[in-house]
């Protein structure tokens, strides 16, 4: 769970282990549960962004449904706009580059060769309701 409060915690706790032992240590039920739960806590702390490839590309902030007064946020958690793109085909390979900065997230989608850019968009992640804005946690 501490990974949610300080990035690199899991790697830090494995600092004395070689790669094989590290993989073994993280393959147990307890450790997989800790990893999953830490991601839940990150979401609880409103620090989770979603990029989904649907008929268009959507950027959402989670959790997105309601604020503490159980009122829906104006756009749900959607950070507009929804971006038109050629789509992705099952079985095909693509290159995806994501740049996450304090106030923005940029997605670039290339074909397998990396030569043909199919989508490039930067979302302003400040464009969300106050209650679901990411908090800046200093670690």
């Amino acid at each position: 769970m501490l990974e949610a409060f300080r990035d690199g915690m899991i790697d830090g706790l494995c600092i004395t282990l070689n790669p094989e032992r590290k993989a073994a240590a993280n393959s147990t039920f307890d450790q997989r549960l800790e990893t999953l739960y830490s991601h839940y806590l990150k979401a609880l702390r409103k620090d989770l962004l979603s990029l989904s490839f649907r008929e268009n590309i959507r950027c959402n902030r989670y959790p997105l449904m309601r604020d503490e007064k159980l009122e829906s946020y104006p756009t749900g958690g959607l950070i507009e706009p929804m971006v038109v793109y050629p789509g992705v085909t099952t079985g095909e390979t693509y290159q995806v580059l994501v740049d996450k900065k304090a106030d923005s997230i940029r997605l670039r989608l290339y074909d397998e060769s990396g030569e043909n850019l199919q989508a490039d968009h930067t979302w302003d992640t400040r464009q969300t309701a106050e209650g679901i804005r990411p908090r800046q946690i200093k670690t």
Partner: protein
Amino acid sequence: MATAESPDGSVQNLIFSYADTKVLIQETLSEPNGIQELQFTDPVATVGNFMMMRFFFPVENWLHFYKVYRATGDKRLLDKLLESARHYHKLSAEYPSAAQQKASDPEGMPFMYSMAAWSRITLQLARKQSGAVSKQEIEEAEAFLKTMVSVLKPTCEGNNSLDPEMGIPQKLADDFRTRAFNRAMNGIGTLSLITVALEDLKALNTTTEYQPTIDRYRKVIQEYIKNWHRIGYLDPNIEGEKHFVYPYAAGDIGKMVDGGKIYRRAEDAGHYSHTLQGLMLLYESTPELGIDDDFMTAVANAVYRSSTVQVEVGKNKKRCILGISKAPLKPDCNQLQKMGTSTVTAQRESGSICWRPSEMA
């Protein structure tokens, strides 16, 4: 962090795949329901065995059900919690004196963990998605809460003998000042679950019936955390970060040396992990009472440091990492207790644990 949507529409992160999540849920569901005491034909023997059981770690199966539910939202895990919740509800209703005695200090309160967790999740869900919970489930959650309030009444309520400093029942205040933090924190965490579940019930039923109880529980939790913070030490600036350290014993007030707090015995990582399990509930339920993002970050910083920094220990100046938290390996408690782990420590010849920046590697 990038995420993808699973076939049922729930959000899955790409680090932990949908298939992995399904496997973990199945593994968790295969665990027993966590009822602790042996069942005898003679109920007196059963209750006697219940009184001997230690619930304060807390019961690991309940912890697993709770965490995996929170991380996945799979309702089958709620049903697993409900099995033991019903069991301890029945026991508390049939043997109220035993239940009250068991919950007369924070160490015993976590016997109600599954009742509290199930009630909290159910009522929270009812508030968020009115169609997701049936009327019968809300009634059952209310029944659990009524029982837990009754169980806790002699311990937490009443104004006859209040501690002048804390403003809570004297016996409980005295307990806060003496009981090891790791033994108490899951009880306080359980109390925080009950408190917010009562607030959920209040909102759903638009009743103020439980308001005095809610106010008292919040006061109890707040005083516990204040005392813990007072004994512990929030170092404001270790390499630019906040770190929270504390001793194993509640009575170990420590002393300041070279800008750092020295305890006779700093908390070891094994016990710190039990404290964290209670903190997890407090963070999720009542962060406004002092276990918020900033504080949890200070805890994470302290654990990270103790897990990665090397020091020289003893006459032979043997170099070693201070300790290791629960992840990824189970700690060697004996070794960790000798070393101390919740802060940068070194072992003096006297065997006491101290903190000295100059001994850092």
